[in-house]
């Protein structure tokens, strides 16, 4: 993916650029808001990483300007501003995701991929199919290889999120945010527990395991082994 990193702190920018390059992305970086805006408008990127506090033009205004000119490139805010309303403000300005420093690099990498893919996939589907698993969101029914599986409402939401991001890594935090609508870290193993429960329901008999645990990162829903 082509990623533009708009970050004024050289150290952080280098950390992001080299990390993303290791993941196989091609990255460009900008030091100031106005440079970033120019690059974002000129070239086509899959994802923009924007620091909220930038010299010249702050991240919030940059994204607002970009959006008002019709640019819909997904934006991930990376920021130290973790205040009560900062996330809401960021998302209202046109950001698609919000990550508060400090964060684990795996978290950032997973979110970048999720954002980049989302721009291509049509998001409104009533029926999602991955491999031999089919989830009907209207009927709340799940079938695997023709066999019906009963799911709790939370399990439906969890599976839906996993299937929409099939083939990508989703982190614990992403799941807490999107499945449980919690934007803080409750010190509990609810994600692990729900995941193993869901895994059990999906895998009966000789079926191959579809939910893969990626050590140190998160989970991945994949039909191929």
């Amino acid at each position, binding site marked *: 993916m082509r990623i533009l990193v708009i970050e004024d702190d050289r150290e952080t920018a280098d950390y992001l650029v080299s990390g993303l390059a290791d993941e196989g992305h091609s990255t460009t970086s900008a030091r100031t808001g106005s440079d970033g805006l120019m690059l974002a408008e000129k070239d086509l990127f899959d994802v923009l990483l924007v620091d909220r506090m930038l010299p010249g033009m702050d991240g919030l205004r940059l994204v607002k300007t970009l959006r008002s000119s019709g640019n819909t490139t997904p934006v991930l805010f990376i920021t130290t501003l973790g205040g009560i309303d900062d996330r809401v403000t960021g998302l209202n300005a046109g950001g698609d995701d919000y990550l508060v420093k400090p964060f684990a690099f795996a978290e950032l990498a997973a979110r970048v991929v999720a954002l980049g893919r989302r721009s291509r996939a049509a998001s409104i589907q009533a029926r999602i199919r991955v491999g031999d698993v089919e989830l009907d969101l209207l009927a709340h029914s799940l079938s695997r290889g023709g066999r019906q599986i009963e799911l709790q409402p*939370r399990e439906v939401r969890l599976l839906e999120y996993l299937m929409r991001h099939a083939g990508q890594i989703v982190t614990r935090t992403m799941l807490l945010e999107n499945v*449980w609508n*919690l934007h*803080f870290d409750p010190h*509990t*193993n*609810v994600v692990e527990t729900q995941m193993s429960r869901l895994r059990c329901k999906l895998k009966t008999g000789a079926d191959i395991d579809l939910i893969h645990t990626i050590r140190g990162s998160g989970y991945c829903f994949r039909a191929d082994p």
Partner: protein
Amino acid sequence: MRIPKLLRTSSFRLTTAYAALFSVSAAILFVLVYSGTTHYMEVELDTAIASDITEFQDIFETRGIEALIREIRARGRQADNANMAYLLQSPTNAALAGNMPPQKRSSRLFETRIPASFSPDRPARRIRARSVALSDGNTLFVGVETASLIDMQSVILRAFAFSFGITLLLAFVGGIMMSRNLLLHVERVSQTGRDIMAGNLSLRIPVRGVDDEFDHLATSLNLMLEQMERLIESMRQVSNDIAHDLRTPLNRLRQRLERTQRTEHSAQWLRAAICTSITEVDAILDTFSALLRIAQIESATSTPEPRNVDLSEVLDTVVEIYQPSAEEKRQSLAGRITRNLTATGDRELLAQMVSNLVENAIRHSPEGAAIAVTAAHGAAGIEVVVADSGPGIPAAERDKVFRRFYRLEASRSTPGNGLGLSLVAAIAERHQIAIALEDDQPGLRVRLTFPPAGEPADRSAEAA
């Protein structure tokens, strides 16, 4: 030039302005009274002249010039006509009769002076006179003394001058007295301010108890000082706490890094050491984030747009996410939550508040304990109760547990940074939720009383 402090006060300026205003109005009154009185007296005098002229003309026309001369001479001798002056003058300006020196003819009113030399028995007098031409060519003059008018004018002038003087004097003295009084109060306030600046934060402005505007001001300022003292004290406390509580993990980290650096190790060992260090740094960063968050919540002055939060859903989610943790300790976690409870505020913060309470309950209760989250409409508003059957909190410690980094002796060994309840308190305060820690015999019961929904007022405002 240095103006004395007293004369520079606003009350003195105000008094001076009032005195000036009063003087102007008194001056207008003076002009009105003076001119009115003068005019009235002049009309009186003119009427006296006119009536004498008519009388003399009458005598002249009916009885002839000789009779008129006799009449004039007779009147000149009468005492009750002492303030009048008469003159009958021939066409050659010779006086035929009367007690006035010869005059130029004039049909209009004129003023003249009869010198003392003219009538030796009387002092000089000012008169107001008029003449009329008789049909035989003689001219008749009738005049009246104006002494009474002048007397009256000077009386009025003196009265006003006197009252002006009194007014200005009173204004000046009153202004000085009021200013002194004001200065005294203000000086007391500013002296207290200077003393506080000098370092005595516990000082307060004296309130005299007379409930005037100075007392109001002093009371408001004292409230402000109290709030500031509390904030400063808590800030001092927090910075002390941070210094103490973060030094320990930072020290530990430093020791580990030093030990790693000192000796040769395998790559695997080093990687493990780095891993542990990152975990420790994360814990420190978590503590910082928690502190920052508490500070942000506490200092947020602008209350964000109140949003309605489905409290039942939030509580269900919290109970759900902690189920695995409770199961791990073989504890039961039950939710008895009334449907469709709506609270006003920030969903994330409310969720975090209840999460912290449930997390505490699980963490501090022994294996097999029972934990319950109940929520229902209470008498004062929605009540959320998180109860556990753990060791509870001794009554004496209940106020202290909301302090940052405060940990009970018994729980020192359990994980946690001592900020969970501080965050709960901050969130509760922001949402005007009352927290009560109660004894559940055994265990702890945390009762959150939400403020009664102020929705009817909002709705009517929207409808308007």
